[in-house]
């Protein structure tokens, strides 16, 4: 049994291609518009930009604070690597006391 194949006319084929192009264009525009709409909706519902920036600064400050604290604990101010601080920095003189000594300072 033979199948009958209908060849479209050139005019009908051109019209079909034009319809397909219009549909594709509308689909692309619609998708773009929807993406923008959802992006705006997400931006409003999750206002993260400002708070994230603060979080970064806070983290940095926390790290610096931690580093300074560790340095202070490990080495007193007069023994840090700050070249401007001389090792032989003066302090208040000792005072005489009648309390029994807890330690002796002498040659060793």
């Amino acid at each position, binding site marked *: 049994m033979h199948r009958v194949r209908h060849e479209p006319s050139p005019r009908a084929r051109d019209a079909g291609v034009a319809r397909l192009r219009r549909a594709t264009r509308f689909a692309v525009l619609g998708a773009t518009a929807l993406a923008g709409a959802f992006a705006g909706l997400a931006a409003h519902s999750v206002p993260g930009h400002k708070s994230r920036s603060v979080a970064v600064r806070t983290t940095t400050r926390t790290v610096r604070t931690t580093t300074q604290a560790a340095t202070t604990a490990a080495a007193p101010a007069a023994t840090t*690597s700050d070249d401007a601080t001389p090792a032989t*920095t003066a302090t208040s003189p*000792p*005072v005489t006391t009648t309390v029994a000594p807890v*330690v*002796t300072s*002498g*040659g060793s």
Partner: protein
Amino acid sequence: MIADLASVSFPALGTTALLCAAEAEGLPAAHEALERELDELDLACSRFRDDSELVRLNASAGSGPVPVSPLLHEAIEVALRAAEDTNGLVDPTVGRTLRLAGYDRRFANVVLRDGSTFRASYGPVPGWRRVRLDPAGRTVTLDGDVELDLGATAKAYAADRIAHAAAKASGTGVLVGLGGDIAVAGPVPDGGWPVRIADDHAAGPDETGPTVAISAGGLATSGTTVRRWLAGETQLHHIVDPRTGRPAQTPWRTVTVAAASCLGANVASTAAVVLGEEAPAWLAARGLPARLVRESGEVEHANGWPEDGS
């Protein structure tokens, strides 16, 4: 009043380590911090341990930059700053001449040697500028004739480090004494920390000496009467004058200084012994309270140090 004060002492670094805590419950944590820091310091800075970093560094002098641990790098940096601050009066490159003079092993073993047959020799002190540090690469470069000895600064620097670490770990005020080098940190007991001044840090309770109280920083005594050894018929001591490469000829038996840190106090007291008669003026120019004892026993005070028995 020091009602809750607790203390522990034990041999360390060739001398005696003492820890006092203003509150007894803080002692275990402070003690743990002390032991840890002393172990690390000895392994990094000892001149007498075959496995120490300093021994390896000295052995590699002249071979270019040598990577070192953060602790040794810091200890050398501190020693070089002390040399710079004192214009070379306290110089870490005295290692070779100290060794030639006979201080070539732990001091307990130096005094066991038959000194009557020992002949000391000396060498020039190359000078601290012959040591180069690279902080970025954490390396140390020693010129070929340089041999470091960190004895003038490492112990005092350790006392400062340990006092601050122990105060932080224990949450209470602490006093750390390493030989004659004393550092305090944290809350201060009422009236301050009472410290007796004597020729020898190991003096017994019956020995005489004034007692003073300190509230911050550190206090150190340098002297020529304790760490001495015999070379033939001559008594030598361990404080080298870098200008001559020999034990310092000094009129002072001991010099005690108070400063903002134990390191600063020890650097100044050592420099004062080396300087001799110029020491009082040198200390005055820096505003450092000090007590100087002449060989004769005569005592001089500088910059607000209280009169003995006042």
